[in-house]
C-alpha cells in the first residue's frame, strides 16, 4: 500500500475536522466581542449575559479548534517530509510567524477572558475578547498565505533542489492567499450567524428567554446579510483568480473539456470522465463562463483536454463539490435576505422556526465542500505546477505506520468531536439561565 495515499487520507481527516471548528472560532469570537462591547457601552446586563452565553459555546468550540490545529503542524513533518524539506524556507516561516504572532495572543487572552469576569476591569475584559477575535483572524491570514503558496507559488527561486525565498513581499501579497482569506473569513461569519440564528430559533420554539434571544437574532441577521453577500462576492473573485492561476482546477470545477473562445456556461452538466467529456451539457449561456471567469464574453478558457491527463485533478469531486457549495451558498443568501426582512416577528413563526435549526449545518457543509474544491482541485500537485503530491511524502515512513495512526486519529477525532458537539448543543439548549459550574 502506498503511504502517500494513506497520508493524504490522514491529512484530509485532520484538516476536515479542524475546519469544523475554525470558522465558528472566527465568527463567534467577533459576535461575542460585539455583545460585550454593547454591554460596556450601555451597561445593560442583558448584553453581558449574551457575551457569557455565546462565549461559553465559543470556549468549547475553541479548544477543539486548538487541539486539532496542532495535528497539522506535526503532520507536515511526519507525513510530508519531502514537502517540508522543499518548502520549509517559505512555508515554515509563515507557520512560525503564525504561532508567534497569533497563537500566543489567542491562548493568553482567551484565558484572561474566560477567567477574568469580575476580576479585571470591564473595559480590559472586553479588550481581551477583541484580541482573541483579531488574533484568530490574523492566524487565518498567515495559514492561508501559506496555503496560498501551495496554490500559487510566488516569490521563490529553486536552489539546490529546494524552494528558497526570493521576495517575502510577494509571498505576503499573494493574490490567491488573500482571496482565499476574504472568502474564508466571510464564510466564517456566515457560519457563526446561522448558528446563532438556529440556536435562537430553538429558544423561540420552546418559548423560553424569547426577548434575550430576539436581540441576538436581530444582530445575527444583520451579520448574516452582510457576510453572505461579501462571501459570494469574495468567492466570485476567488473563482476568477483560480481561472487565471490554476487553469486545471478551474476546468475541473466547471467540467470544461474543449478549449474554445467565448466559452459558454452550461446550466446542466454531467461529466463523463472516462470519455474525457461531458455526458450531458445543455442550456448553454453563450460566452457565460468566459464572462464569469474573466469579465469578458470573448476570452478563451482552457479545457481539460488541453491539459495532460497526468496533470488533471479528479474531475468528479471537484465539479460536484463546487456545484453543491454554490447551491448551498445561494440558499444561505436567500435565507439571510429573508431573515433580515422578517427579523422583527421571527419568534412567532412556530414550526417554521425549524428551518433555522436545519440551516445550522448548511454553512458547515458549504465550507468543507469549498476546501474539497480547493485541495482536490490542486491535485496532482502539492505545490501547484512545481511539486507533485506523490513526491511529497516521507521516505522513512512505512504504510503500516500511517495506517495505524490514521485509524487511531479517526477514533480519537470521532470521540472528541462528538463530545464537543454534544457539549455545545447542551450549552446552547440550556440557555442563559444555566448556572452550571464554570471554573472561572
Amino acid at each position, binding site marked *: 500500500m502506498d503511504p502517500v495515499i494513506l497520508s493524504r487520507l490522514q491529512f484530509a481527516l485532520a484538516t476536515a475536522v479542524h475546519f469544523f471548528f475554525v470558522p465558528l472560532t472566527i465568527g463567534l469570537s467577533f459576535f461575542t466581542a460585539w455583545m460585550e462591547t454593547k454591554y460596556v457601552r450601555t451597561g445593560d446586563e442583558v448584553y453581558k449575559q449574551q457575551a457569557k452565553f455565546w462565549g461559553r459555546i465559543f470556549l468549547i468550540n475553541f*479548544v*477543539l479548534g486548538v*487541539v*486539532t490545529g*496542532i*495535528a497539522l*503542524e*506535526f503532520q*507536515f*513533518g*511526519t507525513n510530508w*517530509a*519531502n514537502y*517540508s*524539506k522543499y518548502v*520549509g*524556507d*517559505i512555508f*515554515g*516561516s*509563515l*507557520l*512560525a*510567524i*503564525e*504561532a*508567534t504572532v497569533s*497563537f*500566543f*495572543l489567542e*491562548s*493568553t*487572552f*482567551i*484565558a*484572561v477572558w474566560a*477567567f*477574568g469576569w469580575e*476580576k*479585571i476591569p470591564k473595559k480590559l475584559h472586553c479588550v481581551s475578547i477583541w484580541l482573541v477575535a483579531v488574533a484568530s483572524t490574523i492566524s487565518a491570514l498567515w495559514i492561508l498565505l501559506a496555503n496560498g503558496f501551495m496554490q500559487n507559488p510566488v516569490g521563490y527561486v529553486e536552489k539546490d533542489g*529546494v524552494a*528558497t*525565498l526570493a521576495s517575502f513581499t510577494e509571498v505576503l501579497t499573494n493574490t490567491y492567499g488573500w482571496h482565499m482569506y476574504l472568502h474564508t473569513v466571510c464564510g466564517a461569519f456566515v457560519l457563526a450567524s446561522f448558528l446563532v440564528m438556529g440556536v435562537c430559533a430553538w429558544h423561540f420554539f420552546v418559548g423560553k428567554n424569547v426577548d434575550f434571544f430576539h436581540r441576538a437574532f436581530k444582530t445575527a441577521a444583520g451579520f448574516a446579510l452582510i457576510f453572505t453577500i461579501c462571501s459570494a462576492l469574495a468567492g466570485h473573485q476567488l473563482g476568477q483568480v483560480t481561472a487565471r492561476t490554476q487553469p486545471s482546477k478551474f476546468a475541473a470545477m466547471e467540467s470544461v473539456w474543449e478549449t474554445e473562445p467565448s466559452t459558454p456556461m452550461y446550466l446542466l452538466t454531467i461529466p463523463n470522465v472516462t470519455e474525457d467529456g461531458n455526458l450531458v451539457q445543455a442550456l448553454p449561456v453563450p460566452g457565460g463562463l468566459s464572462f464569469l471567469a474573466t469579465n469578458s464574453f470573448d476570452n478563451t478558457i482552457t479545457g481539460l483536454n488541453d491539459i495532460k491527463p497526468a496533470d488533471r485533478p479528479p474531475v468528479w469531486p471537484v465539479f460536484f463539490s463546487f456545484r453543491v457549495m454554490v447551491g448551498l451558498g445561494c440558499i444561505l443568501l436567500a435565507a439571510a435576505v429573508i431573515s433580515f426582512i422578517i427579523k422583527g416577528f421571527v419568534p412567532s413563526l412556530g414550526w417554521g422556526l425549524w428551518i433555522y435549526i436545519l440551516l445550522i449545518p448548511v454553512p458547515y457543509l458549504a465550507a468543507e465542500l469549498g476546501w474539497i474544491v480547493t485541495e482536490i482541485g490542486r491535485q496532482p500537485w502539492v505545490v501547484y505546477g512545481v511539486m507533485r503530491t506523490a513526491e511529497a511524502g*516521507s*521516505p*522513512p*515512513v512505512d504504510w503500516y*505506520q500511517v495506517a495505524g*495512526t490514521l485509524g*487511531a486519529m479517526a477514533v*480519537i477525532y470521532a470521540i*472528541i468531536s462528538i463530545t*464537543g458537539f454534544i*457539549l455545545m448543543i*447542551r*450549552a446552547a439548549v440550556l440557555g442563559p439561565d444555566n448556572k*452550571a*459550574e*464554570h*471554573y472561572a
Partner: protein
Amino acid sequence: MDHYVLSVIWFVLWGVLWGVYFVLDGYDLGIAMWLPLIGASSESDRSAMYRVTGPFWDGNEVWLITAGGVTFAAFPLAYAVLFSSLYTPLMILLFCLILRGVSTELRSQWNCRGFKMVCDGLTFVSSLVAVILLGVAFSNLFRGLPLLNDPSQNFFMFQGNILNLLHPYCLLGGILFVLMFLVHGALYLTWRTEGDLHNKAFYMAKATWPVFLLVFLVYVVLTFAWAGLYKNYFASPLLLALPLLCAVLFLLSGYQMYLKNNAGKSLLASCGGILTLTLTGVLGMFPNLIPSRLDVNSSLNIINSSSTPKTLTIMLVVALIFVPTVICYQIWAHKKLAWVIKAD
C-alpha cells in the same frame, strides 16, 4: 548578517524555546500527573488543581508549537528528518496533547461524575505519556539517532526500527522528565494553593525531590557513558559553567524546599534548573540539531539544514519584536489570573 552567525543565533533561540516550553508546560503536565495522588481524596481538590492550571496550559503549550514551527522554519531539513524518523512516537505525543487539552478544558462543562472521572483519567494518562515521550525523544537526540544520508532517497534515512529508541539511557530520560515535572508541578501547586491541598502538594514535592536528584545524577553519569554530549564542554571548559549552574539551581531548589520551607523560591530555582538543563543538552549537541550516531556526515547541523539568510533574518526581526511582547503579556496575564486557590 552572515549565514553562519544567523544559524547560530537561531540554534540558540531554538534551545531557549524548548527550555521555556519545558519550564512552563512542565508545571501543568506535572500537576496533571499528580491528579491520582494529590487529587485522590476529593473532587474539590481535583477541581482546584484544574483551576490552578486552567488559564495557562494552552498558553504554555504554544511554546511547543512555536518550537516546532521554528524548527520547521529555521531548519527545515532537521524538522523533516526528525518528524518523519520519529513518526510513531511523535504521533502518539500528538494524540496525548490533543486528549489532554480536550479533557482539561471540557471537564468543567458538564457536572456529571462519570464524565469528570473519564476526563481525569485522560488528563493523567495523556500527560504522563507525553512527558515520557518528550524525555525519551530528547535523550535520543542527545545519544544521536541512527541516521544515514541516503543519496538514492535524497534523504537522511532512519536505520533500524522504533525499538532502537528504547535504549536504557533514553528510558531513564523519560523517567527523569517525569520526576522533574512532578517536583516542578507539585511546587507550582504548593505556591498557588493554601490549606490542605497546599500542604499535600508541598509534602509530595519534598518526597519526590530526593528520587529526582538520584535519577538526575545517574542520568548525568550515563550521559557521559552513552551520549557524546560532553565533548563541547571539554573542548571549551568555560561552558561547564552552564551544567554547573544547572546543578546548583536544582540543589538550591531542594535547599529552599527543605530548609527554608519556601515553595515560591524553590519553584523559581526549579524553573532555572529546567531551563539550564535543556540548554546544557542543546549546547552539548552544537552544531548539530540531530546528531547521527552512525556517521558524523549524516548529522543534521546548522550548516546543512538551515534556511536561507533571508528567511532567518525576517524571522529574527519578527522574533525580536514579538517574543518580548509575548513574554510581557504572558507575565501580565499570569499576575492577573494566578491568584491563590483554596479547595472548597
